[in-house]
């Protein structure tokens, strides 16, 4: 029945959207708040997927637990990448052209490195819930979608709380608005940016685990997410976490409906179309002023 199809497409879209929110959270922080165009972000997400895959394959630990254990590693990686970025580009005032090329190089090296290490085959994880699902009347919730969606929303809520309630979180929000005000508060903007960027990188561990629970992963899978994450980030109004969540859910639903009714091969074009439309019509995003 057409109606059931639509309902399930919307439900699948909402779960997909919650996952997209986790994928975009890091971009929302690094690009939206810090103005660092980290296009390597999806590459690090795939790195997260492969780490979840290795540990899961070796020790049978749940990929999401692996991701939580890997958070400090990704946080440290973020601090390292930001350190190089700051020393080489931001401080010299050359952050636009060469900074972009730097992150592009990182994206590429991550992908090729994974290809060299694991080859170009699909990799997936085994968990108890991957095959299961919950059925409510006509509605179906596959667990491989539902579990990542719920954890993703929890992570998103934690991030939002951190940003709005803690001193460092508020300082991160202020960094994008007025770096001078921070200096008056005797806060070092570079330190704040390093913390925020590392945090953004840490979300890659989680998003990567979600991704490999939802679907098998290739070294090149990250590319599909580049257009999507920036579409969501811009649509959500740069640097607004609630806006990002709304935009992520919206794009998830639209893609899911497009997939259900027109076939999966068209889904990548949806987010790009929305991105171009947003840039052309409303570059300040849905919730922008």
């Amino acid at each position, binding site marked *: 029945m057409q109606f059931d199809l639509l309902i399930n497409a919307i439900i699948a879209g909402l779960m997909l959207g919650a996952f997209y929110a986790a994928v975009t959270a890091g971009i929302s922080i690094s690009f939206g708040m810090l103005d660092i165009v980290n296009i390597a972000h999806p590459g690090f997400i795939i790195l997260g997927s492969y780490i979840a895959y290795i540990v899961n394959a070796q020790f049978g630990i749940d990929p999401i637990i692996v991701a939580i254990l890997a958070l400090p590693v990704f946080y440290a990686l973020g601090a390292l990448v930001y350190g190089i970025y700051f020393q080489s580009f931001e401080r010299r005032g050359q952050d636009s052209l060469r900074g972009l090329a730097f992150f592009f190089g990182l994206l590429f090296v991550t992908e090729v490195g994974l290809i060299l290490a694991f080859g170009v085959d699909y990799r997936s994880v085994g968990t108890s819930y991957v095959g299961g699902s919950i059925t409510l009347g006509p509605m179906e919730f596959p667990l491989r979608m539902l579990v990542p969606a719920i954890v993703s929303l929890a992570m998103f809520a934690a991030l939002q709380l951190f940003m709005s309630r803690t001193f460092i979180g508020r300082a991160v929000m202020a960094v994008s608005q007025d770096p001078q005000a921070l200096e008056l508060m005797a806060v070092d903007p570079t330190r704040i940016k390093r913390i925020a960027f590392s945090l953004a990188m840490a979300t890659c561990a989680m998003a990567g685990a979600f991704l490999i629970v939802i679907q098998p992963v290739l070294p090149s899978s990250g590319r599909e997410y580049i257009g999507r994450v920036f579409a969501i980030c811009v649509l959500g109004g740069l640097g607004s976490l609630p806006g990002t969540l709304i935009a992520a859910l919206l794009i998830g639903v639209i893609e899911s409906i497009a997939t259900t009714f027109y076939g999966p091969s068209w889904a990548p*074009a949806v987010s790009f179309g929305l991105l171009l439309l947003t840039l052309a019509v409303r570059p300040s995003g849905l919730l922008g002023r």
Partner: protein
Amino acid sequence: MRTPLFTLILLAIAAALYLAFRVIGNDYLFFLGYVVLQYVVIATAWNILGGYCGYVNFGSAGFFAIGVYSTIFFYNIGQSPEDVFPEFMLAPMAWIFPLPLPVLIVLGGVFAGLIGLGMGYLTLRLRGVFFAIATLALAVVLETFIVNWSFVGGSRGAYVIPPESVPVFGTFIQYLFVLMLLLAVASLAAARLIERSRLGIGFATIRDDELAAEASGVPTLKLKLIATVLSGALFGMAGAPFPFYIGYVEPNSAFNLSYAVNAIAMPMIGGTTSWIGPMVGALILSTLQQIVTVTISSAVNLLITGLLLIGFVILAPNGLVGLWHHWTARRSNS
């Protein structure tokens, strides 16, 4: 040096190169040379927008593929015109098709230039980074369209059968090589001409400071659109002969990420402020890649390219040309 003289010298070098290759008489050289020259065109194309104006294009693979698929589109029409045209048009169409390769190259350039214009018009009024992001997504979406478009082969791919031999040039690869050689000469001459013209000064003001450029009377949006169209058209022209070179094209090979990476890495490694940089970067890097691909593996070769790109943007922001200037300045001082 005046542009006509410069172009003549380039043509003379090109002719000498071709003759030398003919004397050696190994078709393998032409195969290798074609790839190197193709990258000279691609690196120069990227640099017109990236190096001169400071606008980063990550979608080089997409623009290249537009040229590739424009050729496949017209080739397929030529293969089976009865599927495309009504009865009464078949006779005149048989006169037009199959289109000669130089015409296909121009068509590839026109389509890629038009796509560049459309995308630039939508995103170039915003901060440069939005343009970069849009180009990132462009390749993915164009690939989606091609995969879903069965006339040009869809995900299965398409075959293009080159003629066995061509008058004057002998083997077809020699003909392709000469076309690419001319294209490389044309793009280098164009890049150098732009650099020294009023247009090039305008481009440089955009790279340095767009607000100050506008205040000095530079129509920045118009200039950026010109650069996007020129750059896109050169990418398309570089891609148009590719199906004849490779024989079988599938979306994965036409949209290969290595085009996007090389398009950025070559100018960045060579140096972005003049026409010499992209050429030097393309010659060195693509020769190196050919060697590594043959001796080790193509994945390692891509890894090296990526690491070189990162290393150069961090350590030598002005590329090899910058290092050379630095070195000669030091020597003349001491």
